[in-house]
């Protein structure tokens, strides 16, 4: 049970994640699932819900960190077109694996959040876009949804009200770029997942040209608690501008890799040492990637940074999805960067010139340097290629591709120089 005293909250999304068979409606109900839903459907208005979400100051948990209430308020009403709610369960950012646990252990939490969000936005068709590899998780969701339909929690006239909503699980097929909201929409339209330029913004013109809201699994899973306990309650947890709890996926050179829900503002050190079993070797990490592979690297000197949007930005990186990849002094950072370069090359959709051509370029140079065949000037080329694809493309994948390379050059140039052969005089 979640306490109504914000200072006593230890979990929101993961409140019931360890309860056996929580995926079953029966069990979920015992833990309070859907208990508050009738109140929302019968007593709350759309404005009230959006207000509470705005007051909660929850920011998109998928990585972009955009204030959710604000996003919802952008949706134009009474356009004559249907509004769509899409749950982004594509979870492909290397290092991120938090949404998987919500979906496979407490799917009804997500479903309930989507019903409430759908109600607020006047949505009648909602979809969960789940990455294709999560076969098991998609099955779990489908079973939970079937249970919900049978219990009049989805479909026509939910719980005897005027509100009807259909929810469909839609599997992707292996494309990281589909985690980008416009690419997700393209994929849901049955096309290749190539991001769209903005404007127009999905809130106004998204799925088949209709108003569309795309939200992350964790974000939507937080909605039931926000509505039950109030936006002010949520805003009292964490720190201003980074409110609430956050699921952090911790992986790499830690003893207990896994997902940990902690209040925003928890320091990196606490996260790693108190929750993730501490470092495998040494007392401080060599490198920590704080928000998924697309974010710039933090160093040992940042070990005490509070995990908030603002603090991490000040430290030179981004909170992103909260995927913390920890590396100690045994890590081969050059190999890691080269491997990430391959990831981005493989996942680039290919539309924009710098990303399409530049990712492959960086990968090839890094491989050469790995093999000790680097040339003078390679570092300059890597820097140029990475820099000029950042902020110059339709989506942020290119910027993510540039981040590890630029971090390596900035903090560990000697690793590159070691692989560069001086030209014979």
């Amino acid at each position, binding site marked *: 049970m979640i306490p109504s005293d914000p200072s006593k909250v230890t979990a929101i999304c993961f409140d019931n994640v360890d309860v056996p068979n929580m995926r079953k409606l029966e069990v979920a109900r015992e833990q309070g699932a859907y208990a508050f839903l009738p109140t929302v459907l019968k007593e709350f208005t759309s404005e009230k819900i959006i207000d509470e979400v705005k007051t909660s100051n929850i920011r998109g948990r998928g990585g972009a960190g955009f204030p959710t209430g604000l996003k919802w308020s952008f949706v134009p009403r009474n356009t004559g077109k249907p509004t769509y709610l899409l749950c982004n369960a594509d979870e492909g950012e290397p290092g991120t694996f938090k949404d998987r646990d919500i979906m496979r252990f407490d799917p009804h939490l997500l479903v309930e959040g989507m019903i409430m969000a759908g109600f607020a936005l006047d949505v009648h068709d909602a979809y969960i876009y789940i990455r294709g590899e999560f076969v098991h998780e998609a099955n779990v969701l489908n079973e939970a949804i079937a249970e919900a339909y049978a219990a009049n929690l989805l479909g026509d006239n939910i719980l005897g009200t005027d509100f009807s909503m259909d929810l469909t699980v839609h599997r992707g*097929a292996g494309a990281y770029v589909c985690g980008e909201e416009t690419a997700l929409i393209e994929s849901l339209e049955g096309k290749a997942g190539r991001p769209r330029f903005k404007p127009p913004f999905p809130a106004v013109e998204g799925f088949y040209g209709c108003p569309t809201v795309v939200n992350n699994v964790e974000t939507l899973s937080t909605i039931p608690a926000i509505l039950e306990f109030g936006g002010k309650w949520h805003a009292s947890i964490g720190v201003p501008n980074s409110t609430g709890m956050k699921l952090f996926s911790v992986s790499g050179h830690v003893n207990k*890799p896994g997902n940990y829900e902690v209040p925003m503002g928890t320091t990196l050190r606490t996260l790693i040492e108190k929750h993730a079993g501490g470092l495998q070797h040494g007392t401080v990490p060599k490198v920590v990637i704080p928000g998924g592979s697309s974010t710039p690297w933090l160093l040992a000197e940042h070990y005490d940074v509070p995990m908030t949007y603002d603090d991490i930005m000040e430290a030179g990186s981004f909170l992103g999805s909260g995927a913390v990849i920890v590396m100690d002094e045994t890590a081969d950072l050059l190999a890691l960067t080269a491997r990430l370069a391959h990831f981005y090359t493989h996942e680039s959709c290919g539309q924009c010139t710098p990303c399409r051509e530049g990712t492959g370029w960086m990968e090839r140079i890094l491989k050469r340097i790995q093999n000790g065949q680097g040339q003078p000037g390679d570092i300059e080329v890597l820097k140029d290629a990475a820099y000029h694809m950042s902020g110059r493309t339709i989506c942020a994948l290119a910027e993510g591709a540039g981040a590890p390379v630029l971090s390596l050059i900035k903090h560990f140039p000697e690793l590159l120089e070691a692989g560069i052969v001086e030209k014979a005089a």
Partner: protein
Amino acid sequence: MSAPQFSKARLTEIEALVKRYPHAQSALLPVLHLAQEDFGHLSMEVQQLVADTLGVRLMAVREVVTFYTMFREQPCGKYLMEVCTNPGCMLNGANEVLRHTCDKLGVKVGGTTPDGLFTVAEVECAGACGGAPVVQINGVYHEKVDAAHMDKVIEDTRSGEGAGA
């Protein structure tokens, strides 16, 4: 060789699926998954079948099939073993697992054993880094995998197949 067809049951399933979307083309990814289940891989004939079933252009199907990694135009081994080697897994020995598996089966990365049983592939982040190293075998996640685990899986699979033969 006659053109591939969906079974009646499959067609009913597809019909119901299409109804959940505003336009039939949205059902393309789910239907391709079903087709790949039915036919093993998405040959040009199967792609044409999907195009005809949904009423979309063949080019639209080709674009989707070639864009997404999970769709195969060529057949692969009966057991597809996909090893993730991205940072979370790499830092915990994934490269060694990959090398070991390839050596054990006598194939290169991406290759298939001569008996058509196993294909070993190197893939991108599987989204389960907490259980690194992660190997997906025919879609099932195996986590905290080491060489011994792979050896056991291969052995068990082989004897299972041998018993059936």
